[in-house]
């Protein structure tokens, strides 16, 4: 108590000197405002940099000159001695705030509104300059509060000026740096067939890689502010599709505002842009990203699609055996009380949802740490692929009956029905999730692409829905015994069926081994097979022990062997990986698997081909993407399609995302995707790309390339 009083007194004493330059600062509950000048002693005829600084508490914002759909720009009204002149406010580049259907332009955290103040040349020396300003602003979180403060400053006038404190100069120079710069590139504006405008900015460095681009109109009515602006960067030309506002621009009218460009690895930079609207040209139009509905998909639809996608995953070759195992287990449980069956269903669901949430949190963690990943990122890690290969192989061996999964190491072999406790159900769920990831079902790509651009909560929700979709068949089965009765009666056939299911699992393991070879080079096959051999021996040894109850050392040695084998495999991985860093060609060579003739993708190559009027087919793919491979096999590499491509002179560009590649990730992001596959067809001489469905058929491809002529 006394301490607090004493501290309070001390604080008051410290505050005393501040009262001398009374009201240079003022504070409300949300905003601290302060008047700053670049000199503490000024001289006649001098031009001074002056700023009103606002420090805003977290989550609140004040507004830019054009506040957007609601809100109000900050106003500064000066009361100045006669002869003193002040320039218009120079506004730092704003940020966007989106609240449902309302988009606002303004500032959070901190902003300084800059002006120039001229001291008259005949100002008498020794007579202080008294500056006073009324500053009005609106500060909003979701609710808004209009606020007004008075700020005043008395500046001594002398023959030789004195600079302001280093701290103040720092604030001023930081604010200057945030002012939009004159645009060093050429801008062109013309009407767009969709009723909006197309802004083309050319002359950007060819190697620039943008993560975002947005045009802030200087006043209301020019653009529909809450509609998305689509953009595309190609060959140093940035094209933006701007939706027209309530008072559309006529030919000859001027669109002005700030173009904000965010470069990878650097903060956003604002450019002053002022372009005159040209008449609609029938000639060469610049390419603009194919409109992708994904980016403005509603959350509800994304959740629905995630659920449907999760459901479809059940039919994928790597998940189906796991699902069947679960269904079999349920059948075996069918004699048990319904409550227990339902608990099994929920344990399975929990396993799926929790492991998907784990993935989502991992994604968010990477995102927070500044590393953007796409869906399927797990398969870009050789370690993950190796562990997955071993896991699938182990599951396959289990299905073959080599060994049983029991709670205890030395447990005797038990009946299929009994071995699955709730823990078993839970881990079946985890397993189903882990093996499902490479088979990103067609519908899921859109929902996940959407999720990646959303706030964390939405992203997590999308993943939860995905999990529920994946779990739904088993959950439904566990709730409606009537459905179970439709399935064949449990019996010896189940054992045969289970052993049959091992084979798709072996197949999946082989496929993953092949993915590993793509990542690590073809010689990884040899040691991988050794690891698997060791694993199969260890598990067979375990199985032997399970048939003779009692011994303890046998399962233990099996386990030790298993772990040693894995460690050896991981060590192999490291050595190959380090070789790879010295010779990057190793992975490149490995990644070129057999298939149709293609060229590797690059933005520059695409732009070059398009400029030459060549039709281009772009194939975003990865070795670990099963549907990509299926499409390549059954559609892309058929002679029918190859013939159609060569007849029409279509160039096939392939963007291989097997290993991590920031450039391809960004390109995918531009089309609202976070993963592969993505198929685009750029018809000769046309502006927009045609986006093809994620399941290709030869007919569809032939039709696509032919129709557009």
């Amino acid at each position, binding site marked *: 108590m006394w301490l607090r009083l004493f501290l309070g007194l001390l604080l008051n004493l410290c505050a005393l000197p501040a009262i001398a330059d009374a009201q240079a600062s003022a504070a409300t509950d949300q905003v601290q405002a302060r008047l700053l000048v670049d000199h503490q002693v000024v001289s006649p005829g001098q031009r001074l940099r002056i700023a009103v600084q606002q420090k805003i508490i977290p989550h609140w914002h004040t507004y830019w000159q054009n*506040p957007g*759909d*609601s*809100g*109000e*720009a900050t106003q500064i009204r000066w009361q100045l001695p006669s002869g003193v002149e002040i320039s218009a406010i120079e506004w730092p580049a704003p940020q966007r705030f989106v*609240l*449902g*259907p*309302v988009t*606002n332009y303004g500032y959070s955290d901190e902003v300084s509104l800059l002006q120039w103040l001229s001291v008259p040349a005949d100002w008498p020396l020794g007579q202080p300059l008294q500056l006073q300003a009324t500053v*009005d602003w*609106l500060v*909003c979180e*979701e*609710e*808004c*509060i*209009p606020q007004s403060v008075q700020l005043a400053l008395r500046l001594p006038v002398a023959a030789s000026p004195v600079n302001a404190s280093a701290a103040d100069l720092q604030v001023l120079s930081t604010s200057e740096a945030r002012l939009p710069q004159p645009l060093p590139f050429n801008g062109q504006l013309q009407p767009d067939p969709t009723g909006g405008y197309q802004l083309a900015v050319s002359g950007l460095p060819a190697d620039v890689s943008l993560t975002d681009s947005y045009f802030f109109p200087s006043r*209301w*009515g020019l653009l529909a502010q*809450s509609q998305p602006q689509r953009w595309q960067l190609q060959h140093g030309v940035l094209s933006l599709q701007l939706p027209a506002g*309530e*008072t559309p621009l006529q030919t000859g009218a001027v669109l002005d505002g700030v173009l904000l460009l965010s470069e990878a690895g650097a903060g956003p930079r604002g450019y002053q842009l002022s372009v005159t609207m040209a008449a609609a040209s029938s000639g060469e139009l610049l390419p603009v990203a194919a409109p992708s509905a994904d980016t403005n998909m*509603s*959350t509800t*639809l994304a959740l*629905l*699609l995630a659920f*449907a996608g999760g*459901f*479809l995953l059940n*039919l994928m070759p790597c998940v189906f055996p796991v699902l069947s195992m679960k269904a079999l287990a349920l059948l075996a449980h069918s004699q048990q009380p319904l409550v227990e069956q339902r608990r099994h269903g929920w344990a399975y669901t929990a396993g799926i949802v929790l492991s998907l949430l784990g993935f989502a949190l991992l994604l968010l963690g990477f995102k927070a740490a500044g590393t953007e990943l796409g869906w399927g990122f797990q398969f870009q890690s050789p370690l993950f692929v190796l562990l997955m290969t071993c896991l699938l192989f182990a599951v396959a061996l289990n299905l073959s009956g080599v060994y049983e999964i029991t709670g205890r190491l030395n447990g005797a072999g038990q009946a299929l029905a009994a071995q699955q406790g709730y823990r078993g159900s839970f881990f079946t769920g985890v397993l189903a999730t882990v093996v499902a990831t490479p088979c990103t079902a067609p*519908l899921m790509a859109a929902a996940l692409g959407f999720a990646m651009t959303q706030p964390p909560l939405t992203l997590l929700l999308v993943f939860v829905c995905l999990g529920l979709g994946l779990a739904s068949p088993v959950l439904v089965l566990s709730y409606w015994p009537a459905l179970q009765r439709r399935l064949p009666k449990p019996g010896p056939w189940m054992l045969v069926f289970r052993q049959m299911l091992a084979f798709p699992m072996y197949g999946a393991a082989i496929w993953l081994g092949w993915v590993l070879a793509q990542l690590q080079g073809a010689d990884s096959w040899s040691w991988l097979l050794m690891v698997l051999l060791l694993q199969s021996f260890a598990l067979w040894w375990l199985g032997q022990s399970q048939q003779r109850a009692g011994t303890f050392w046998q399962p233990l040695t099996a386990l030790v062997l298993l772990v040693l084998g894995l460690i050896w495999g991981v060590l192999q991985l490291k050595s190959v990986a380090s070789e790879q860093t010295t010779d990057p060609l190793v992975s490149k060579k490995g990644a070129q698997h057999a298939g149709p003739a293609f060229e590797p993708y690059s933005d520059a190559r695409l732009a070059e081909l398009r400029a030459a009027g060549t039709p281009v087919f772009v194939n975003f793919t990865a070795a670990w993407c099963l549907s990509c491979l299926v499409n390549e096999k059954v559609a892309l590499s058929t002679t029918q399609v190859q013939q159609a491509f060569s007849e029409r002179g279509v160039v096939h560009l392939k963007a291989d995302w097997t290993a991590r590649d920031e450039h391809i990730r960004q390109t995918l992001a531009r089309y609202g995707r976070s993963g592969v596959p993505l198929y685009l067809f750029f018809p000769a001489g046309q502006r927009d790309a045609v986006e093809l469905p994620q399941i290709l058929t030869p007919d569809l491809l032939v039709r696509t390339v032919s129709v557009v002529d």
Partner: protein
Amino acid sequence: MLHRMWKLAAVSLLSLAAASAQAAAVIGQPAPDFSVSNANGNPVTLSSFKGKTVVLEWTNHLCPYVQKHYDKSGNIPALQQAATADGVVWLQLISSAPGKQGHVDGATALQLNRDRKAVPTEVLLDESGQVGKLYDAQTTPHLFLVNADGVLVYKGGIDSIKSSKAEDIAKAQPYLKDALAAVKAGQQVVNAATAPYGCSIKYAG
């Protein structure tokens, strides 16, 4: 099964497309029709007022910009008085979601109007935000004017000065008042689309 899932997805996509293709509030086009409960719990349908001029006013009694035109100046109540005396139907809409600023029950809404001497024809409770989003209403206040043929003839701000200060009302160009006068005189509204200003509407979600 797979086939059926695709069908389901296609249907949901189609219905979404249909919803977004639904008529928006465009000047010179028929104003989108709606039906929503009034403060007494009775449904009110826009199209039932055909033959009369209708004002749609989005409001939120706690928004400083609404207070500027109600409590601090009586500007909107005066406009309501004059307009309804001319036979205009004035619909006051509250689209604040439950738990958000400005959300009130019917009785409170009516009491607020008595306190503020406001005389709208109806107070409509749009807590789901459906009507607000149908009109793309963004701010409180945000005003729309529908003529006797049911055509939207004005949308935007109540006047031209974006501020929360009552003393600015006299200096501002009274867009809504001008639009009402033009409609009454059978003339074209000069500034048919202006910038709405105020607080953002506190929609659900």
